Structures are given as C-alpha cells and as structure tokens.
C-alpha cells in the first residue's frame, strides 16, 4: 500500500469525523438524534436510504458472484431494484404522513404503537427487541467484512483493522446521531456511485470495448453470459424475493420518516432509484469485466496487495472472487484514485453499519428508556442515553466480530428475511387498510418471524430451499388479515387517524 493511497484514505476518515462534529452542533433533542428532526432534503434522503441499504455486498459480494458464476447471479439485482422502487412508490409518502399524524412517531416501534393505539406497549416491545437482536448481528457482519478487507489491503492485523473502522464509525454516529449518519451516507453514497461507474467503464475500455469483453468472457465459459438457461426457477424466485424485504427494513424506512416534506418523495424516488440501478449495473459489469481482464492481462503486481491468483483449467483467476473490484482499483488507476476507490468500499460498509447502529440505539432510547422506564426524562438526558446506546451496541458487535471466520456473515440473509417477513406486511397493511387491528398486527408479526426461523433452520430440500422470506411474508399477511377480521373492529379514533393520514 503506497503512501499516496494511505493519505487519500486518511483524508476520507477525517472528513467523516468532521461531518459528525458539524451534526453534533445541530442536535439538541431526541427527535434530532434519531430522526434528524425530519429535516432531510430529497437528495440526502435518497442517497442515505440507498447507502444504508447497500452494504459492502454491492462492491464485494455482487461483483464476486458474477465473477465466479456469471450473469445467472444478476437476478438478485433485478429483485432488489424492483423492491426498492415499490418501497419508494407505495410506502415512502404514506409512512412520512402517517408517522406525523400518529403522535409524531420517530421510530418504527413507536409508529406501530401509535398506529394501533396500543397502550399495552406489547407491539413496541416486541418490535424493538427484534430490531436489537437482528441489527446487532447485522452490524457485526459488516465489521467482519470491513476488517477482513483492510487487513489485506493495509497490512494491519485483523484486530487493528476492526478497531480502527469501528472507532471512526462509532465516533461520528455517537456525536452527531441521525444527521451525522445521513450526511456521511450522502458523501459515502456519492463515492460508491462514482466508483461503480468509473471502474467498469475504464476496465471494459482497456479490454477493447463491449464486444471484445463479451468475446473474452464467452471464451472462458459460454454459460457466463447466460442469465436464463441453466439457472433454476427456484433460484431465480429466491433471488428476486430479496426485493420483498424492503418494506420491513427499519434502517431504510426511517429515511422516509425523516423527509422534510411528503412533497419531496417523487424527487427522492427518482434520485434513489437511478442511483441504485446504475450502481447495480456497475457492480455486475465489474464482475464480468474482471473475468476477461484478469485472464488476459499481466496482473502479477496484485500479489503486492495481498491478492493471490490461481490457474483454473488454463484460465487465470482470482483466488478470492470478491476481490475483483479491489484488483481493478490497484491495476487500472493512479495510487490516489486507488485510495478513493478503496474508500468507496469502506463507505459502502460504514454507511450501512452506522444507520443500523442508530436505529438500534433509538430502540433503546425511545422505545425502552423513554416509553417505558423514564417517561419524564429530559431531552438532554435522552440524547445521552442514545449516545451511550450507540457505543454499547457497537461494542457488542465488535466483540461478536472478533473472529474473522465467524458465522455472523451468514446471518445477513437471515436478518434481511426476519425484518422483511416480520415488519413488511404489517407496515403495508397499516398504511393501506383501515381494518387491521392491534391483534392482527401482533399475530402476523410473530407468525412471520417464527416462519423465517423454522423454514431456515429446520426444513430443507425441495421447496424448502426457497428463500425463507417468501413463506414468512405470505403467512404474516394472511394471519394479520384473518385475525383482524375475526376480532372487534378498530376504534373510531383509530379510523379517524387513518382517514386523516389518507387525506393529506
């Protein structure tokens, strides 16, 4: 790792801390700390939603999957893009309006309690517990990915890389809360976008253009270029089903709630969807171009960066497919640009971790501390409880990430399915159907979560290899509707709020 690359990188880290400090100056109460006081403009909200959603997977896992197995791995991109679009189209505006009508709710558990006038706190407590459980593992997996990456690139030990990344992320999140997380997400989202556009364009140009790239990839293995034949229907449905998860991801939903105005949704949707689709294309073509480039060019210098090459049936391949983006950044670009491209990968990882940390912190500060234990707490006290919660949850995640071979990486698809199946149908029904009741929401949520666990852990083979989000989502929806219809109708006050939210 050259000095120029390192300096670029340190400037990036200092920039993030600077943003955290600026946000600290603008944070005075709990609503500021967990929702930015609903002050996000459309472009910050859009890129913050995108960058929080897209983890290091967009620059490591997806290009790696395409590199290793060809275009048959692109279906998940199609599914995710459709899900993100539908979320912006159908959930964003209504959730922004209804959370304000419902007693100015600032977290997802807060919204659920206020939407159903649930004085028992049971919806709030269960949903806050689900958030704390899944996000602790989810953030931990991001830390493992980040530490592995920078251990190799900077010659640090795994533990050193883990702590440096964690301390920077915790610092700006601790200080500046939601505004720090959203503004850093905005910068990180721009870095990710620029990197994902630049790398495949330069790579394909170096190879000799689009047709030359296709020929080179096809000559390695023709099936690499086929998205349809040889890919099973169950695999396609499972990949596309990732898109079902969006309606229940708290770290994305709060971006809708934090918008300055519901009128900003169309503009934010256009920015968010364009950012995501072009980013996904960038990742897919980086993987394809990698196949052609690594096999045909002299890339021996990669060993200096901890990247090993292997020979597979006469084809020169990367030993670790997920390093295809990093390999390009080192062989195609000036060291300063390589530093920016590496910062873009760290951006993808950090922008997801920080948002999940803050949502977890809000579950403790708003949904347990303020709602249940200290109803009279001052705003200053609540902000500090939020800060301590950020540090505490992050430290637990760091502890879970101590082992680089840890199984937390496998828990991401599980957490995504858990949120998608437990919260997704309830968010949609609560926004669109006035007949849903507290008991319907509670029963649906529990059935959705249990289905995900049982399907993933205890059933296998045949149809049970389908991604667990599908049965979880469907059963939650059915149970929530049936239980709501079977019990007493919602109160007049609840119906009045629903109609108020529908009118705005």
């Amino acid at each position, binding site marked *: 790792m050259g000095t120029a690359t390192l300096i670029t990188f340190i400037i990036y880290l200092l920039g993030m801390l600077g943003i955290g400090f600026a946000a600290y100056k603008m944070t005075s109460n709990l609503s500021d700390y967990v929702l930015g006081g609903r002050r996000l403009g459309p472009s910050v909200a859009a890129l913050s939603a995108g960058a929080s959603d897209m983890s290091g997977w967009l620059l490591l896992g997806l290009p790696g999957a395409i590199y290793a197995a060809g275009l048959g791995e692109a279906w998940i991109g*199609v599914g995710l*893009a459709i899900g993100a*679009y539908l979320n912006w189209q159908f959930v964003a505006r209504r959730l922004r309006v209804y959370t304000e009508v419902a007693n100015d709710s600032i977290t997802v558990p807060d919204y659920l309690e206020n939407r159903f006038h649930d004085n028992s706190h049971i919806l709030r407590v269960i949903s806050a517990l689900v958030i704390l459980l899944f996000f602790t593992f989810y953030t931990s997996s991001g830390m493992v990915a980040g530490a592995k990456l920078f251990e190799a690139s900077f010659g640090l030990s795994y533990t050193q890389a883990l702590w440096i990344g964690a301390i920077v992320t915790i610092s700006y999140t601790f200080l500046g809360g939601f505004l720090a997380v959203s503004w850093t997400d905005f910068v990180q989202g721009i870095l990710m976008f620029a990197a994902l556009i630049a790398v495949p364009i330069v790579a394909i140009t170096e190879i000799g253009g689009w047709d030359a790239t296709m020929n080179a990839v096809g000559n390695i293995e023709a099936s690499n*270029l086929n998205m349809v034949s040889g890919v099973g229907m169950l695999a396609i449905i499972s990949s596309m089903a990732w898109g079902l998860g969006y309606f229940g991801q708290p770290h994305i939903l709060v971006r809708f709630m934090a918008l300055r105005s519901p009128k900003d949704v169309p503009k934010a949707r256009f920015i968010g*969807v364009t950012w995501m*689709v072009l980013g996904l*294309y960038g990742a897919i073509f980086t993987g394809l171009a990698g196949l052609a480039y690594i096999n045909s060019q002299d890339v021996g210098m990669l060993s200096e960066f901890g990247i090993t090459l292997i020979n597979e049936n006469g084809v020169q391949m990367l030993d670790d497919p997920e390093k295809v983006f990093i390999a390009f950044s080192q062989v195609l670009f000036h060291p300063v640009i390589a530093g920016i491209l590496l910062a873009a990968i760290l951006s993808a990882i950090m922008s997801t971790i920080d948002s999940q940390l803050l949502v977890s912190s809000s579950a403790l500060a708003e949904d347990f501390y303020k709602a249940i234990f200290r109803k009279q707490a001052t705003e200053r006290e609540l902000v500090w409880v939020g800060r301590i919660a950020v540090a505490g949850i992050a430290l637990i995640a760091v502890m879970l990430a101590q082992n680089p071979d840890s199984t937390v990486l496998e828990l991401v698809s599980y957490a995504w399915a858990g949120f998608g199946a437990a919260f997704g149908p309830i968010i949609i029904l609560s926004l669109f159907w006035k007949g849903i009741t507290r008991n319907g929401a509670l029963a649906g949520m529990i059935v959705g979560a249990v289905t995900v666990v049982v399907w993933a852990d205890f059933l296998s083979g045949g149809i049970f290899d389908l991604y667990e989000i599908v049965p979880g989502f469907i059963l939650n929806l059915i149970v929530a509707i049936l239980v709501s219809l079977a019990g007493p109708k919602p109160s007049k006050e609840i119906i009045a709020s629903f109609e108020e939210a529908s009118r705005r």
Partner: protein
Amino acid sequence: MEEFALTGATWFWLFVPMPILILLSVITLFTERSE
C-alpha cells in the same frame, strides 16, 4: 477466438426491467408533482 454475444432472453432480463424502474420514477416525478 470465438465470437459471443448476449442471448435475446438474457439481454431482455438484464436491460429491460431495471431501466423501466428509472423511467417510471421519471414519469411519476411529473404526474405526482401536479396534484
């Protein structure tokens, strides 16, 4: 070296659904603004 290109079905699934989403977000940018 043999010549290769994307098949029709692959070309369709790779280059039709995702750009349509951008197109829809452009259309609704104008239709929803006027409400």
